[in-house]
């Protein structure tokens, strides 16, 4: 058999296959390899005969085996690469990110008696000078968790509800429980009964619930409306009034309601505004700008909620939206460099978090839902913490505990016994 291959064709022959064997080989000129001249026997010719793509590779290898100086002929490295007897010394180094010059605004939640409030302590968010847990600059404050309390019994996933059955009719007791038993840094009181389509509780009545919660716990609080854009301004105005001077977080001002009233209430009674937009960085800029320029809200009184979507249900948008906002803020966008808050509880909307089993017969077994729910909430929150989120609104005690553990570990606040990983391969698990 005589089969000629131009070396210059090798490149195209290798198109679809692993080309590592030829890397570093410089082919110049119009050299040809003639298999016939290499004394190819019929068996080999058969082995080479069918696949043109493999042919060239085999050709090289076999020629080498036969002692034909293929590599020298190609002007390539010697067939046997140099064996080194000792490691090449080296130092690794990497620079810091120069663009991150603008710190995130620091915002204090809660006020103690010396500042006109009644909270025992305050919480500061923001102040970062790099992406979270990065080494480029200090992260002065850890992440914080505020746990949800509702002003009426609501539908909850079973795994969540079992923790609150004893307090479900008393927001004050509920608030005490999350602080005392579950380690909540803050409490969010959601005044959902004010929704005209639910109970249409009056703003004055709802404000009483806020007072009860403020008396029940001494941590800073978030005051949430029902999400009804017509009713929320009145509800939050009244709540802001009874919580005068406490530096509560008013949730929320948004572009689809009269945000100016909420801004005004915050200014008048010394609270912080939660600037809430739906997964749109430009809308977030616009609302922040309006709050500052049009409503005169001071920078130290703004926190953003760019919206949290659950793992598997749009978390990719929520994550990237937050990451872009944080990067823009660090790089000097003064309309976006505010601390962020996440409604992490939204994770429970994912069917994987609460459904008994998969509705799809084709899926592998989903296993017990009691374990799926909390981890869904954890991973949703954890992902956003890596994008720059500061404050997490959460529901499940285990989720709170684990999210605290990992965020504080990455923050640098957790010591541990040394663990030897040198021979993890042989570990008996």
């Amino acid at each position, binding site marked *: 058999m005589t089969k000629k291959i131009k070396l210059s064709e090798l490149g195209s022959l290798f198109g679809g296959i692993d080309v590592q064997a030829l890397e570093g080989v410089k082919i110049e000129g119009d050299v040809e390899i003639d298999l016939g001249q290499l004394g190819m026997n019929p068996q080999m010719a058969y082995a080479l005969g069918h696949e043109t793509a493999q042919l060239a590779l085999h050709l090289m290898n076999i020629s080498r085996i036969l002692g034909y100086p293929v590599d020298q002929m190609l002007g390539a490295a010697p067939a046997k690469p140099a064996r080194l007897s000792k490691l*090449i010394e080296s130092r690794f180094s990497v620079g810091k990110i120069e663009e991150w010059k603008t710190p995130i605004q620091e915002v204090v939640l809660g006020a103690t008696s010396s500042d006109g409030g009644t909270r025992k302590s305050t919480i500061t968010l923001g102040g970062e000078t790099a992406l979270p847990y990065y080494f480029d600059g200090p992260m002065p404050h850890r992440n914080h968790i505020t746990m949800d309390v509702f002003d009426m019994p609501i539908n909850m996933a079973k795994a969540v509800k079992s923790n609150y059955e004893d307090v479900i009719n008393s927001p004050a007791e509920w608030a005490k429980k999350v602080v005392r038993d579950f380690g909540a840094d803050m409490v969010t009181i959601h005044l959902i009964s004010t929704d005209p389509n639910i109970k249409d509780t009056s703003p004055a009545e709802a404000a009483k619930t806020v007072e009860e919660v403020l008396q029940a716990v001494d941590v800073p609080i978030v005051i949430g409306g029902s999400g009804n854009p017509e009713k929320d301004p009145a509800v939050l105005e009244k709540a802001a009034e009874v919580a005068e001077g406490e530096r509560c977080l008013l949730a929320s001002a948004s572009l689809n309601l009269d945000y100016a009233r909420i801004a005004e209430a915050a200014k008048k009674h010394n609270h912080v505004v939660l600037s809430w937009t739906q997964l749109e960085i430009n809308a977030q800029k616009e609302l922040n700008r309006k709050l500052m320029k049009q409503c005169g809200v001071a920078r130290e009184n703004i926190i953003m909620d760019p919206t949290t979507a659950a793992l598997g249900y749009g978390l990719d948008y929520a994550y990237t939206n937050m990451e872009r906002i944080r990067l823009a803020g660090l790089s000097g966008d003064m309309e976006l460099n505010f601390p962020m808050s996440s409604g992490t509880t939204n994770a429970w909307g994912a069917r994987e978090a609460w459904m008994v089993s998969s509705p799809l017969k084709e*899926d592998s077994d989903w*296993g017990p839902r009691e374990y799926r729910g909390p981890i869904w909430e954890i991973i949703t929150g954890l992902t956003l913490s890596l994008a720059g989120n500061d404050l997490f609104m959460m529901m499940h005690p285990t989720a709170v505990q684990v999210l605290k553990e990992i965020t504080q570990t990455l923050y*640098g606040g*957790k010591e*541990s016994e040394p663990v030897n990983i040198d021979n993890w391969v042989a570990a008996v698990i």
Partner: protein
Amino acid sequence: MKLNSPLQVYKYLPQINCAECGDATCMAFAAHLIDRSKKLDDCPPILKDEYKKKYTELQTLLAPEIREITIGTGEHARRIGGDDVLYRHQLTFFDPTAFAYDVWDTMPEAELVERINKITNFRKFYVGKFLRVDMVAVRCVSGDALKFAGAVKKASETTKLPLILCSFDPAALKAALEVVKDKNPLIYAATEKNWGEVAELALNYKVPVVLFSPDLDKLKSLALTFREMGIKDLVLDPGTYPQGKKLKETFERFIMLRRAGIKEGQKDIAYPIMAVPLNAWLVYKDAVTASYWETVLSSVFTVRYGDIMILHSLEPYAMLPEVHIRDTIYTDPRTPVKVAPGVNEVGSPTKDSPVIVTTNFALTYYTVESDLSSNKINCYLAAVDTDGIGVEAAVAGGQLTAAKIKDTFQKANFDFKDKTSHGTLILPGLAARLQGDVEDVTGLRVMIGPPDSGRIPGWMEKNWPPKPK
């Protein structure tokens, strides 16, 4: 890659607009090379002699910053690395993190087979596809090379998934490689101590190899040394400490390595990075706690630059979030997430079949569609154009309205009198507040379905066919 505009790429192309690549012009093809939706070898003319030099140059310029490495063979072969950006919105991340779950050579054979089958068969339906896991990592726990090779042999007979051979003992790795030398396994690992012998194996068997050292100076040293010896398919394991300050440092090492590779173009360490969330089991013995922490570590390093990882827990509550967070991070932010608006048939609907409304957000639509088809519910499913927004948000934001719903059926020429015997439309439970409006605007009878489409089968049993008015 070193080029960032189609014009720069165009200079290297034949510029003859032959359209053999499927694009009408070389400029259009250049744009596809930039966004990496096509490969240079899709251009037949440039493979010819006369363009050899330009082909070679362009190939180098187009190569991703992080080296792309293939593990395994055939249809289950998996590429890792290949990234060009630090943040997904800057382009997209390529080659999703490969998940390898472990088995070990001291397991009884039946358990090993069962475990591998579980790994191989795991699947979770999501947006028109199944999420799966990728590899099996075989750990040498016995310290016995022959026993290890036996386990590797059994593993390779049981699954077509790529294998990672894990041992710090070169003799054990060699014995295992003999068994699977044609399967392109990844070998784990070369260290400061054994590197010479492991390098020899990587050269002789032509397999990709992991370098392990939590000391980045040493890790770079190893990478340089292997590269110098002609071994390019490297994976870096900077050590995954499961707890405390050491975990924080681990996180920082991942950031440093990837930043050096992509932002600073340090080719010497621009290789895929391996994480070992399995190390959670070194500190937690309780299965739930360990699985939870392992999932947490896995998520951290899926978000921040892990290209391949070794995991242990096969609990669904660990695997489900793991595959979902990977999909979250690696979903291409450039692809539209909408389906075409219209009225589609699911199964073979008749006049008595229900007509169900949802939005054109791809996730919502595919979820509803798969819930219906999986449960063999024949029906019409209308995708209303909500700009790709889900039901709840679209109702709140005014993208899902009675007028839009009416419009959808009109544009599809769907006449309820013609197509149905019941003149009834089913709204999603989360759009219940539109019921009155839709009744007024369409004149149809409107029923409210469940808030989650997974509950449609149960809902149908109770509510369908609708009782006569």
